[in-house]
């Protein structure tokens, strides 16, 4: 009988005030065990204050081939950056 445990992605908040960040993955039978295992492997040296785990299968991801349609339009909109606007030095800090 094959009983391969499902794969989980692990996210850790390094310090209060920061976002959770993806740190890796692991196998575990349940969410509780995934958190236990994540504690054991990914926070052995004070790396975190909070753990999220999510089944890898439940993650929807963009495809590399979508890179153009998804991200190209924002390249064309340079006016979204403050540096697009020339403000004379005399105006002072803005």
């Amino acid at each position, binding site marked *: 009988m094959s009983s391969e445990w499902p794969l989980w992605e692990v996210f850790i908040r390094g310090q209060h005030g920061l976002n959770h960040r993806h740190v*890796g993955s692991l196998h575990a*039978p349940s969410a509780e065990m995934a958190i236990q295992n994540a504690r054991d*492997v990914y926070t052995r040296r004070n790396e975190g204050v909070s753990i999220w785990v999510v089944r890898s299968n439940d993650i929807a991801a963009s495809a590399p081939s979508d890179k153009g349609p998804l991200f190209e339009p924002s390249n064309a909109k340079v006016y979204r950056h403050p540096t697009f606007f020339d403000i004379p030095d005399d105006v002072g800090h803005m």
Partner: protein
Amino acid sequence: MYAQMVTSEGGKARDEMTPEERAFQDRIDRGERIEPKDWMPEGYRKTLIRQIGQHAHSEVVGQLPEGNWITRAPTLERKQILLAKVQDEAGHGLYLYSAAETLGVSRDELTGMLLAGKMKYSSIFNYPTLTWADIGAVGWLVDGAAIMNQVPLQRTSYGPYARAMVRICKEESFHQRQGYSIMMTMARGTPDQKAMAQDALNRFWYPSLMMFGPSDKDSVHSAQSMAWKIKINTNDELRQKFVDQTVPQARFLGLEIPDPGLAWNEEKGGHDFSQPDWSEFYEVLKGNGPCNAERMEARIEAWEDGAWVREGLMAHAEKRAAAHAAE
């Protein structure tokens, strides 16, 4: 190294490449990282699975020679330190299996291939740890040699592999320093203890040099792996660096490297040294090293004895999920 003599597939001259293959090679040449969902040549994928899988197996099997001394460490503090070190190695195995899994192979498949003798692990872990000083020598030399190889691999072209290497390298320097600290204590101890440290160095020196694998300056496999940036340095380059780094460390301990041919070569700015016995290396790879059978037995036993736990926990999780869904 932890991955020795990995055969690579699909070496092609640029004019034989398909447009896709050419674009892929260009990305690598520009220093871009390849990510799991990106297009990649089949040979790149297969070679990486072989290399990362072998590396992962080495981390896991590598726990055995050190685990041998956890219950016999000379002090409680040394026992705690060694336990932490061996736990780290289990983690290294996990990071690497995870990286391999992004290439479309499952961890159980990789384990199955190891247990069936279809995949290898590093030759070094087929040598026994006979005394406590061996634990010092392993941390100092074996982890030291691993670091030589793993530091450049942080820049390897495959993203998940490179990221696993970054995590691993952060933990390795603790490993090497704890080993060297054992050697310092032994070398400064009684004459018997110092002799034990020397004996450990004598037995681990050449097997450590073998970790880098035979010279590959003429190997087509290595050339392909280097073009793909899944191998960064030649075996000889890394071995030379290792010797040059280790000689002064041995001198500081007052221990002697067991090589009458060892000498500083001013011209090349490095040491001349004797090669290990490569016929011994090939014998160990074939399964005829001092501990090959014992290591495989231990892995098979762990896998089989753990089956009821893996299955039981899975059954329990499924039952609870079903009960939860029925609520």
